[in-house]
């Protein structure tokens, strides 16, 4: 058999194995993204055929959508810049400490720290609503009143002041997911000789050890964990609406980009406009991930 023929057969069999995934991946991930980009240049009310609108949606999004510029963008930046990095650093530190305790307690503690990732966001709402209830029957209010830290119950989920902090706390609570497990496994697999060599080469303390040995050896897992952190943060973006029970959230205090998309897409049926917001969000996520790749990638 000629070499060329064999290569052809190999290609054919590769595509046969790939085909089911590839078709589904194209249909439900690639095409929706492409479609969102296309629709973002149109007027589309979901009944009539989309009408070409050029850059109109983007122009009104950035020049005349007061809610978007005044609340949605600052909220999203605040939420993602706090919850994302903080959750990520927390995952790394927890993983690093867990790697230094014996297996049995490590498994148990890791299971507990990971357990929030097994709950569904919707299902947990009922628990948060009871814990953060706005009158004195709320558990947090009752506790703080009891300790004399507050004089009257705080409207945690309905106040413009507190909704965002609660959203961030709830997101941090569930930030130890797949990325955390990846970093934990990565740390456990670092070759112990590297540490010995490091100490011979002049590493003096645990901090230097993290900077010069742990992080460089862990780069691939840290990159994976960072990408997962970015995704989780943006995916959690709808949480303000579930917690406060209304879209828009009270005085837009917890309004993030995902909620703005739903508001226009599914409540007002301005699909073209909503698609433009989706595209902006996707670009935002891509830029964040790019930054993450720059930080942890192999110096490209």
């Amino acid at each position: 058999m000629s070499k060329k023929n064999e290569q052809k057969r190999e290609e054919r069999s590769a595509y046969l194995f790939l085909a089911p995934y590839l078709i589904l991946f194209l249909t439900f991930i690639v095409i929706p993204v492409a479609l969102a980009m296309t629709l973002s240049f149109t007027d589309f009310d979901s009944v009539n055929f989309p009408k070409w609108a050029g850059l109109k949606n983007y122009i009104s999004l950035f020049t005349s959508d007061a809610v978007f510029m005044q609340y949605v963008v600052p909220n999203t930046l605040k939420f993602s810049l706090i919850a994302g990095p903080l959750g990520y650093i927390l995952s790394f530190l927890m993983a690093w400490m867990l790697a230094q305790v014996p297996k049995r307690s490590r498994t148990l503690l890791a299971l507990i720290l990971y357990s929030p990732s097994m709950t569904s966001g919707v299902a947990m709402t009922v628990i948060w609503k009871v814990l953060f209830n706005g009158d004195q029957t709320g558990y947090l209010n009752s506790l703080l009143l009891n300790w004399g830290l507050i004089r009257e119950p705080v409207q945690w989920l309905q106040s413009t002041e507190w909704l965002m902090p609660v959203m961030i706390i709830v997101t941090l609570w569930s930030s130890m997911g797949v990325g955390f497990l990846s970093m934990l496994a990565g740390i456990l697999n670092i070759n112990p000789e590297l540490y010995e060599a490091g100490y011979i080469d002049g590493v003096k303390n645990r901090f230097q050890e993290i900077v010069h040995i742990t992080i460089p050896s862990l780069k691939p897992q840290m990159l994976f964990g960072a990408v997962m952190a970015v995704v989780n943060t943006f995916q959690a973006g709808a949480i303000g609406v579930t917690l406060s029970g209304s879209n828009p959230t009270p005085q837009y205090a917890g309004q993030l980009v995902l909620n703005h998309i739903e508001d226009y897409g599914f409540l007002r049926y301005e699909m073209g406009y909503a698609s433009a917001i989706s595209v902006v969000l996707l670009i935002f996520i891509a830029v964040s991930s790019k930054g993450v790749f720059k930080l942890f990638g192999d110096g490209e």
Partner: protein
Amino acid sequence: MASIQGKKMNPSRFHPSQIKFYVILIPMAILTGLPIVFIFSQALKPLNELYLYPPRFFVSHPSLSSFRKLLEAMNSSDVPIYRYFFNSIVSTLLTVLCTVGITACAGYALSKKNFRAKNLIFGINTMALMFVGAAVKIPKYLIVYGTGMIDKFAVHIIPALAMPVGLFLVKQFMDQIPNELLEAAKIDGATDWYTFRKIVVPLSKSSLATVVILTFQTAWNTIEASELYLNHDNQKTFAYYMSTLTTTGNDVAGIGMAAAATLIMFIPNLIIFIVMQNNVMSTMAHSGIK
């Protein structure tokens, strides 16, 4: 001295130097675990304890009354309770099975086959790790509509099958299966399909188990299909039914029922993860993006 430092990672037994880690880890675990404990406590509270003021975190006289109420409520709705469960179980099982199959095949091709677009496809898949599905709900709806899947049971399953994270983990894991093994099989006359089933799949069991867990978690918890693509209640899932409880049931009895439902949703995830957690850890060891 130097060698002592290295041995601090992955210790085999307790040593007083570890106390400083426990001092941080245990309170963190307690903080993280409290809301989970609260699901249990709240679900098991009898009605008078749910009303109690000041509220008490832990249940003092556990009872199954909230579960009974939940059953009654479900039985009195138009759709019988077993229907929601049946839908959830069938759609989750099929999603998990199909995802594992499709992902294993694709992972094999990307890891062990040579073809021109290989790196390009894997690169695109790695980019898709950061894909947030909720951002493209609208075009996805149009595609589901266009493919005629509205009001079909399959809509629970088919749109959920391509999972970039799963393919990524499986491919990375398969990369460490030695190529010589596959070549030897080929020389012995094994077909591709045979090599895949008898060598590659058994050796990648850990990563496939991880895909099972991740898919199960999303499929079991999701309400997307029930909420957006299905109009008839008898095709919807338990997760959907429970989301209607959390949004409407604001009275005290409703809160107990919702907590009971939350617990029912949580337990299967927990059991599956505990059973398979060893596989997850060995998969994650190869999860880095290089």
